[in-house]
């Protein structure tokens, strides 16, 4: 983990409110599921924003982000060669060594970002990917390349199947479910995992201030007490999460 100022190699619009930023970041080790606290150097906001690693090849750090508010809006306007402050890689990442058997990756919207870097690092496993979007689809390449099966669903039916992607998963086929996406989707999957005794991992989105475990702002209730999403997470196993009381 380090604090550094990275140059933007490119920052391009993908579709709708989705953007992809490439940053110089050489020779580091990054686990899938880890994230960075990202901050533009000018701009009228205070806290860095947590953004997952979308891809990394030892040279270029790729981020996929959705413009939802002030901070991400400013990100979308940054130009090549400008610098951004990044702190990371942070968090635990997915427990690659523990993931077993047949795996379903289930991503919703921008939640596919961390799964993208995961899918190529899970090569050794049998993976099916289920990706849900509202209307437009994006960033399918890696999932196509590394999954045995790829199921796409959109709420509008514009691409792939119509409906929520979770409606098209045959849960019993899997030993492990890995999810990142809207909280309702993740809660549903965690519940299904618990009910059907399938191992699940979810990457949680909590509001963060420090990103390194110092402020205790990102607390997550687990069966073994309060944990920090930025430090002991953002990836948690479904069993340990106390979902009912999560405000997400």
């Amino acid at each position: 983990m380090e604090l550094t100022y990275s140059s933007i190699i490119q920052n391009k619009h993908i579709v709708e409110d989705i953007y992809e930023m490439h940053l110089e970041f050489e020779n580091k080790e990054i686990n899938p599921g880890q994230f960075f606290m990202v901050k533009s150097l000018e701009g009228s906001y205070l806290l860095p924003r947590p953004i997952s690693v979308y891809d990394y090849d030892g040279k270029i750090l790729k981020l996929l982000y959705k413009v939802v508010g002030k901070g991400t809006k400013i990100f979308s306007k940054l130009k090549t060669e400008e610098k951004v402050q990044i702190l990371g890689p942070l968090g635990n990442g997915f427990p690659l060594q523990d993931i077993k058997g047949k795996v379903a990756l289930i991503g919703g919207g921008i939640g596919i970002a961390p799964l993208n870097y995961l899918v190529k690092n899970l090569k050794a496993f049998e993976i099916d990917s289920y990706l849900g979007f509202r209307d437009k689809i994006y960033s399918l390449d890696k999932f196509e390349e590394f999954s045995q099966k790829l199921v796409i669903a959109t709420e509008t039916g514009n691409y792939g199947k119509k409906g929520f992607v979770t409606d098209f998963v045959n849960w019993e086929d899997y030993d492990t479910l890995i999810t990142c996406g809207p909280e309702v989707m993740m809660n549903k999957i965690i519940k299904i995992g618990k009910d059907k005794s399938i191992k699940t991992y979810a990457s949680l989105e909590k509001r963060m201030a420090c990103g390194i475990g110092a402020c205790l702002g990102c607390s997550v209730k687990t069966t073994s007490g309060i944990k920090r999403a930025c430090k002991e997470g953002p990836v948690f196993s479904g069993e340990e999460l106390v979902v009912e009381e999560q405000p997400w």
Partner: protein
Amino acid sequence: MVNLKVDFLGKEFKNPVLSASGTFGFGEEYEDIFDISRLGGICSKGLTLNKKEGNEGIRIWETPMGMMNSIGLQNPGVESFISREINIMKKFNTNIIANLGGNTEEEYLKGIELLNTSEVDIIELNISCPNVKEGGMAFGIKSKTAYDIVKKCKKVSKKPLMIKLSPNAENIGEMAKACEEAGGDALSLVNTFSGMAVDIDKRSPVFNNIYAGVSGPAIKPIALKMVHEAAQNVDIPICGVGGISSGRDALEFIMAGASLIQVGTANFMKPDICIDIINEIEVFLIKENIKDIKEIIGIV
């Protein structure tokens, strides 16, 4: 060379820049980012006699150039601190300030008794946390209540006591004076301002506790005024806190009467900002030909 050293309650501080309670953990998370021994001191996360899990629901919310938090004093408890976390802090070779909160008089007194035997340099008595219901803050609103608790704490404390004031105090000048008269050795101010956010889409308060604490650059001019007002009212030394995010900010507080300053929210903006602040203070002194930082403490 200019002198940044400050003598405060008999302890030598390398420089006047401390990390503020609750924003710096017990230091270890920042270790990979910069050399923590460069700090004048570290204020621990707010401790309570017994372990606390903190508040439910959203704990962090951004505001214009500020933030709100409702952590609710999540902490391992004083005993754990003394046996574990203090050892992390000790290796940074800087002053250790234990921030102590409480809901009852007994909790404060027992906490102090335990800390008496520890290696902390100073106890920062937090009578100002707005985020616990029964509330440390209850002690920090009315001068009379504060006087009583400080007086009692002082009696049992073998460590210097720095009283952390709330900006929600009814009258900050009077409050400062009351804490001095009760035997407080120093003051630190301010803690967070009581604030609120509404989620208009959900038509409900953002925080489970409805109110939460506001900090960051947004509060700086108000915090600075309170530090100045306190300094006008007491002779004990003051540690200034509230929205400091640059050397110039720190110098404003110092000139207004603070011997030391604490950096809180700004650590989140840029985790090595304390180092920038120390450097900026030094550069200013050199440029202005001020040999010793003590020359400008309280000159405004």
